């Protein structure tokens, strides 16, 4: 996603978080009835990112519930460590300085406008 598109969406009021992707993991998340042994389980992906939510670089976790798969092993994370990604948040909380967010979809890589063939900021467009 181009930088200008991120800014446009942000100005429209969308809740976006840009952070450097560190790692991700999928887990089975749910509740188990200890009496009957029945369980309510879904797959939840956790993205570990570095961003500046507290003014300094800090690590944050973004959760994504995956209803399309039932096995955490099937979750793929084709993301590049150290690259900036845009997360489309549905909600977040900051508790004792720790940022935790929730998203309904996977992140999108952040691209500079120049990468996408557009004119860089502050430079007049080509005639």
């Amino acid at each position, binding site marked *: 996603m181009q930088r200008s598109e991120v800014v446009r969406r942000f100005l429209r009021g969308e809740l976006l978080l840009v952070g450097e992707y*560190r*790692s*991700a*993991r999928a*887990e*089975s*998340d*749910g*509740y*188990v*009835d*200890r*009496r*009957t042994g*029945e*369980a*309510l*389980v879904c797959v*939840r992906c*956790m993205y*570990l990112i570095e961003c500046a939510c507290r003014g300094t670089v800090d*690590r944050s*976790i973004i959760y994504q519930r995956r209803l399309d798969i039932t096995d955490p092993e099937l979750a793929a994370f084709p993301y590049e460590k150290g690259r900036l990604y845009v997360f489309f948040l549905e909600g977040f909380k900051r508790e*004792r300085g*720790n940022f935790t967010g929730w998203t309904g979809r996977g992140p999108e890589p952040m691209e500079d406008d120049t990468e996408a063939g557009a004119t860089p900021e502050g430079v007049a467009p080509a005639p």
Partner: protein
Amino acid sequence: MSKSKAAFLLASQTLGKQQLFLWTFTFKDLLSVKDTRKRWNHLLTLLLRRWPKLQGLRVFELHKEHGLHVHLLTNQFIDVNEARRLALQANWGRIHVTRVPSEHAGYLAKYLSKQRAECLRRWRLWAGFGAGWEWTKVKDLIRETVFSRIYRGCKEWKQWQGREKFFERMALARQIMLLTIENGWQIGCGPNGLPYSSFEEEDFWFVF
């Protein structure tokens, strides 16, 4: 998903192994929530007296225009005219009933997703009723997540008891969770699959 909602879904799955009926009981007039609860207790007593084998789940819903009303999920066919007569006796108004397929047993859980109104604080928004079946209760549930498993691992390692230094404990468990995600550690273990007790606490903060 809240623990209460999860317990309700499991309870409705237990109930939903049989045929189900979804009932809605409302009032003609707007009543206070306390009065509604009293009338519900009265109506439930009458229903169980008439149909002693009736089993089900009830959910309170605070409607923004019509006040508090009650939804029921039952597993037994009961005569609606008779139920209406009992409802009138307990000063209830309109009754609506429909059959629901057992796979839709969790439908009423949507009312539990609503934000809880201030007047319903500490209320049981849902409850089971009827003899002869055990519905899942919130206390029966345990949460299984990466964090909870790491926390349990830390608790075992540090021999935590009571609630002393709660926030320090949470911070340590969170730090280990971040390291577990970043380094792909096995859950409940540190580097090279070794238990947490093989390391010093400082290692998790400054070394790894």
